[in-house]
């Protein structure tokens, strides 16, 4: 078994697609209409197009808002993405106007930072120690 797809809820799929592709640098993989307004919308890493897909899932369900509000208040991210250099990525994304709730911190062997994806979620980026 392996992880094929995971998802984040997003307030607005079109806006989320722009942020996840134009700002973060992922590429769109599937974009299929579902129902009247929703889309089956996934992105993947350009470094690994056949790898795990991230589904940008509509946040319309009534449970989503209280769930995400409670996580955001305590600064808890909903997903973690790996980057080569957290500090460089922090500088790049900050320059693009991305808001961080946690600046890069060395947590023992791992360096992490947490930013707002503008679609309702906090995302953690992490640089793992070189193996």
């Amino acid at each position, binding site marked *: 078994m392996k992880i094929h797809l995971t998802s984040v809820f997003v307030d607005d799929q079109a806006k989320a697609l722009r942020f996840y592709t134009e700002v973060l640098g992922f590429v769109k993989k599937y974009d299929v209409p579902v129902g009247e307004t929703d889309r089956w919308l996934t992105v993947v890493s350009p470094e690994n197009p056949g790898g795990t897909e991230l589904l940008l899932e509509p946040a319309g369900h009534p449970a989503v808002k209280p769930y995400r*509000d409670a996580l955001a*208040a*305590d*600064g*808890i991210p909903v997903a973690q993405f790996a980057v080569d250099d957290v500090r460089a990525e922090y500088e790049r994304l900050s320059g693009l106007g991305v808001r961080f709730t*946690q600046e890069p911190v060395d*947590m023992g062997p791992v360096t992490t930072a947490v930013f*707002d994806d503008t679609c309702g979620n906090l995302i953690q980026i992490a640089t793992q120690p070189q193996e």
Partner: protein
Amino acid sequence: MADGLFTFEALADPTRRTILDELAEKSGQTLFEICSRLSMKHRLGSSRQAVSQHLAVLEAAGLVETRRECRYKFHDLNTAPLRHITERWLDRGAPGPEESTP
């Protein structure tokens, strides 16, 4: 709080002192960041709920202040209660023994 009782109670716990160390290093942390620092940097396995309770004690003692920005809650260090302690015993103008030459 005038006699610093809460301050001493708050400082009596080693985890709470570590929280203050981390907030002194960088003010403005979310609960998540504080928990991450405690577990990853200090190997303290306190639950999020326990850390939240520690923060409530520190906040009651005035050593930690919280502010909400957008959807997020940040914790800042406030050293004013510690200053009251130093004023009570240390800032009386009398030279301490450490100032006498051996």
